[in-house]
């Protein structure tokens, strides 16, 4: 009885509050992000947000390739690593400033995408997924190979380049880096979103839906797949460049499987095929991994339970818990968090058009949910 009233109250409340156009929502999101440094956060918390911005660029670029064109890539780390290493090598050999090095690195990255895309185009589906996984492994093994240690720096990678704003004190430096990455994220996500919804993007979607049919319509599928690879590689390289210059190191872990799977996990958290989903997912990921599990939980344990030193397995358990959360989210919400909310909004709107009363809304929502196949 009471539950019924509560549900009615909730659904009429939700139907009015969630009734915000998507563009306004994006604007509000951006406004909140712009105001983050004003909240008086320390350098550590700002670096979490910077990390989220970088991951968001990487994940959105993965989503453009996989969610929009349907070319499953398990090796996005290759672009990340190429970005990092090429900006590092440009500094090492030509002492280029980072502002000159980034555009050149982007060029190198998109050329690399072209070269990698070429053999990858011959294969489809699971073959493609596994072959793309092979590329970063090859490069990371080559980079670590001892005869080439003078060029690539071996296991330790390349260090000692100045980064973006080397002359500012730490807090101002972080703030500047935050705004810089936010602008980069904004520009690149707008570019990717516009590409995904342009005529080219529609062709990408047609390849995702039915490659044969798009070929039959006279589309040069090869050219568009390569284009998708190149755009995606370009923004992946951008993320790698920025990350290397933020951490001031380019090392073999940039090619690792964890980096390849980062955009996938993030995109699944946010919603595949949307471009904006991965951005939401990246913030969820960064806050969950770097704030809740790495900072908030240990602090709470310390303050409330007088646990002075964390048990030795905490770091192992942290990744375990995070992976479990990802696993459960993927199984429960295979369409991602942002898709889940948009679905819910659409359901609410539909139901409100039919009937103003609350409980009916809830019923339609429930019915729809149960009718979808598992």
């Amino acid at each position, binding site marked *: 009885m009471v539950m019924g009233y509560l549900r009615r109250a909730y659904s009429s409340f939700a139907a009015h509050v969630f009734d915000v156009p998507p563009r306004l929502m994006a604007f509000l999101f951006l406004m909140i992000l712009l105001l983050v440094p004003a909240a008086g956060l320390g350098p550590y918390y700002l670096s979490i947000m910077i990390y989220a911005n970088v991951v968001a660029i990487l994940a959105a670029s993965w989503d453009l390739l*996989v969610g929009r064109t349907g070319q*499953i890539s*398990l090796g996005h780390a290759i672009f990340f690593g190429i970005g990092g290493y090429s900006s590092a090598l440009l500094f090492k050999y030509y002492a280029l400033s980072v502002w000159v090095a980034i555009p050149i690195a982007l060029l190198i990255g998109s050329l690399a995408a072209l070269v990698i895309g070429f*053999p990858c185009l*011959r*294969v*489809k*589906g*699971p*073959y493609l*997924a*596994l*072959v793309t*996984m*092979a*590329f970063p*492994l*090859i490069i990371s*093994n*080559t980079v*670590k*190979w*001892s*005869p080439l240690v003078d060029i690539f720096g071996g296991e330790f990678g390349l260090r000692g380049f100045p980064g973006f704003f080397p002359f500012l004190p730490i807090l101002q430096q972080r703030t500047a880096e935050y705004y810089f990455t936010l602008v980069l994220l904004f520009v690149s996500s707008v570019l990717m979103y516009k590409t995904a919804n342009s005529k080219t993007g529609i062709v990408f979607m047609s390849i995702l839906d039915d490659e044969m049919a798009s070929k039959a319509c006279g589309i040069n599928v090869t050219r568009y797949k390569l284009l998708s690879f190149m755009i995606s590689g370009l923004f992946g390289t951008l993320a790698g460049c920025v990350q290397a210059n933020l951490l001031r190191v380019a090392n073999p872990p940039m090619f690792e*499987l964890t980096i390849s*799977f980062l955009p*996938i*996990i993030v995109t*699944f958290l946010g919603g*595949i095929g949307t471009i904006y989903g991965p951005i939401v997912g990246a913030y969820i990921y960064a806050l969950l991994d770097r704030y809740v599990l790495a900072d908030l939980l240990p602090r709470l344990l310390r303050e409330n339970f007088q646990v002075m030193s964390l048990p030795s*397995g905490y770091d*192992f*358990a942290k*990744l*375990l818990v995070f*992976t*479990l959360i*990802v*696993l459960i989210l*993927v*199984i429960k919400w*295979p369409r991602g968090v942002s898709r889940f909310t948009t679905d819910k909004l659409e359901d609410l709107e539909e139901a409100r058009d039919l009937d103003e009363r609350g409980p009916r809304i809830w019923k339609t929502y429930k019915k729809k949910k149960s009718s979808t196949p*598992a």
Partner: protein
Amino acid sequence: MLIEQIIVYGAISGGVYALLALGFTLIYGVSRVVNLAHGSFYMLAAYMFVFFGTFGFFGSDPMLASILALVLAVIFVGAVSSITYRLAIHPVIGDEVAVLVVTVSLAIIFQQLMLLWFGASFPRVSWPAGSVLLESTSILGVSVEYSLILAFVVSLVLFASLLVFITRTKIGKAMRAVSQDREVAMLMGINTDRLYMLTMVISAMLAALAGIFITASIEKFTGPWLWFKPLTLSFSIVILGGLGSIKGSLLGGFIIAFAEKTVTVMVPEGGAIVGVVPLAVIIAVLLVRPKGLFGKRIEMEE
């Protein structure tokens, strides 16, 4: 001398690699699951072999104890695989990308569990000291331990028996039917869910056997991160031979093994880049034959 080394060690590794890849190709052929947790079953089995070995069953006879540990480890891995299949892979089956995410998450979960349980170390895995398996004999002038010969023989026997199982038994027939057309197979009264689970268990047990034989006879140690190397090996073998093709995985195993040994022996500092070899081989092959060597012709493929 070098050539003999390549031939002998390449043949031995080829047999075990084929066994490792067999499970991967089987689960893909039947249920279209690209199981990136395949290497974890290998790693898990090696750990469990050590773990069950420490109990010292049959106190006086270390060889019997070690065989019991092997059996227990394989059964344990089979049970784990059936549970993970039911809880994690079954809900997302049919969605290619979600399956990849789920299986990689499973691999990381197993890695972290082993880290928590056994710590960040590399435990030694070997056959009991003083047994005949650790003695050496000479083939073509190359000295080879008996344990390597045992691994080779066991993997070929297992391979042959699985081939018989697939082609001669009723369950094998059902597997082939499901791999050809899932819906029609369902209409013929085949319980596909149960069959998928059975295939998963068989494939995990094959990975477990390969894991124990490779770690105990060749690598001599294991570690929480050692699921990734067998995974890259098995997927390169399987791509080389053609996904879902059983004979392809046999041939692919030998090709990759010979290529690896050639690089190890011939190239200076070759040991460090030996991990690249299988990957480079598959890229070279795919440029010529996009569906692998046995792409479309074998019974498991559509």
